[in-house]
């Protein structure tokens, strides 16, 4: 830690340089470049099919790149240091597992054998307890995990990802299928976790608005290409028009940001909108 502080500027926990990836012969990511600093909250914004999940899988090493480099701080020191919450995991209510069992597997689920040492067991339990506390999940720690609500399951999976003390936490659409209140709770929780645990959070979403109060960096994906920077730098008409390849207006209304396709152009589908909701050539982010 001190060594890195002495260098003046901390090394990024994650840096992608000119990363391209292909799925079944189709270019899904095209020259994506961005870096994430320690403890930074990054929103990965884009429509369905923009390449968000592929980008996360590339960072995790589950998807090979066609070109470019991905550097992870932890990987350089020979330690796996990424927590991951996959998209739409719906836990089976018939599965005899408590929330705390799922969290414990985040620590040692890859290990072989059954842990028997009582001393290690105590350490294990304490760590699980702490991870559950950090996501406010102690109340339902002993409940069957499949019977919990979507927001509660999301918190359990975040604890599962956090218990390994990663430097980088990746979440794939954690707000999908959650009601507004749960969305706000999860976002507030992630912002708190990023600060307290000094873990960089990278989460994908199709709507940036719930994240505006907390995000420090936005990576805006469209058609496999990306621009990255602060919200002010990226969410501007010139920048997004260049990314989409045609004119896009950015409107700020009541603290919300709407991305609107320009008149006369081919309708764009900015994040959050399904094709069915295109009306009179104007599309907006709710």
């Amino acid at each position, binding site marked *: 830690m001190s060594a890195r502080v002495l260098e003046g500027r901390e090394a990024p926990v994650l840096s992608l340089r000119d990363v391209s990836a292909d799925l079944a012969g189709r270019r899904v990511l095209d020259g994506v470049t961005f870096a994430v600093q320690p403890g930074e909250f990054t929103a990965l914004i884009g429509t369905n099919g923009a390449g968000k999940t592929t980008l996360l899988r590339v960072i*995790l090493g*589950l998807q090979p790149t066609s070109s470019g480099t991905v550097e992870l701080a932890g990987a350089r020191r020979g330690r*796996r240091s*990424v927590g*991951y919450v*996959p998209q739409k*995991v719906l*836990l089976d209510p*018939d*599965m*005899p*597992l*408590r929330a705390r*069992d*799922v969290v414990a*597997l*985040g620590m*040692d*689920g*890859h*290990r*072989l*054998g*059954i842990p028997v040492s009582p001393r290690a067991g105590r350490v294990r339990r304490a760590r699980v307890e702490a991870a559950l506390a950090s996501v406010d999940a102690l109340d339902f720690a*002993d*409940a*069957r995990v499949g*019977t919990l609500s979507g927001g509660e399951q999301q918190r359990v999976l975040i604890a*599962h990802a956090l218990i390994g003390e990663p430097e980088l936490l990746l979440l794939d659409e954690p707000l999908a299928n959650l009601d507004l209140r749960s969305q706000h709770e999860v976002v507030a929780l992630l912002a708190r976790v990023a600060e307290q645990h000094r873990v960089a959070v990278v989460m994908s979403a199709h709507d940036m608005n719930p994240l505006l109060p907390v995000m420090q960096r936005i990576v805006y994906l469209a058609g496999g290409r990306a621009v990255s920077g602060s919200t002010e730098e990226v969410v501007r008409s010139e920048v997004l028009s260049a990314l989409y390849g045609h004119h896009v207006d950015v409107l700020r209304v009541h603290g919300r940001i709407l991305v609107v396709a320009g008149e006369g152009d081919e309708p764009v589908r900015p994040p959050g909108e399904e094709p069915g909701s295109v009306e009179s050539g104007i599309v907006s982010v709710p």
Partner: protein
Amino acid sequence: MFSSFMVNTWVAASIVAVVGGVVGFFVVLRGSAFVAHAIPHGAFSGAAGAALLGLNTVFGLGVFALAGALGISALGRKGRHDVATALGLVVMLGTGALFLSWSAEYAPQIYALLFGEVLGVSRAELWPIAGLAIVCLAAVALLYRPLVLSSIAPELGEVRGVSERVIDTAFLLVVALATAMTVPVVGALLMFSLMIAPAGAARALSDRPGVAIACSIALALVTVWVGIALSYAINWPLGFFVGTLGAAFYGLGRLIGARRRRIASPVA
């Protein structure tokens, strides 16, 4: 009922029940009931082939069980292997039909492999059963955490370096091993019910995986014990008792599970 001749039967059936209860827990957890159906029944064809060639039927059983498991694993994609399983099953059953048609005489030995010959286990047969049971249980203990993790969501395992492919194949091999050791004792039909019903009932009884496995073992033991006792006393086939008792336990387990859930959340 407890003569020295029957003691072997009790011991063999108890070993089979423990393995069925443990392996079954993961069969049910991973939603692989169809695989647990296909491997024992398909393996039966291997026994028919071995009988035709004058080899030990258990050998043929083991070879077919392993081949079936590896075939299903190779053909299946991303943990979904229902079509691959069905194909494996029909190929193996078809081959079994061919082998049986070539056999000049009717083979009660092979018939027993379908429905079990638990009332005639010799002492010499006990050792291989016990040995395979230990290997089977050790394999499950070794794979315990990665198996549970990948059952929650394969991606959660993948990011920790747990290859879903490897885990899935290893698990299918454990099912094949359990099949090879248990089918000669209880038959393919009973092995299937011992791997499904007790575990299915047990998962409703506790939210803790360890306790649920213990319940699964206990229910499997009670099922075979009561089954043997009734079968001995009334002289009806053991298969009938194990099948119906298993289903009854499963129904009971679901009822208790539903009740527990109501008590746990009185508001809902």
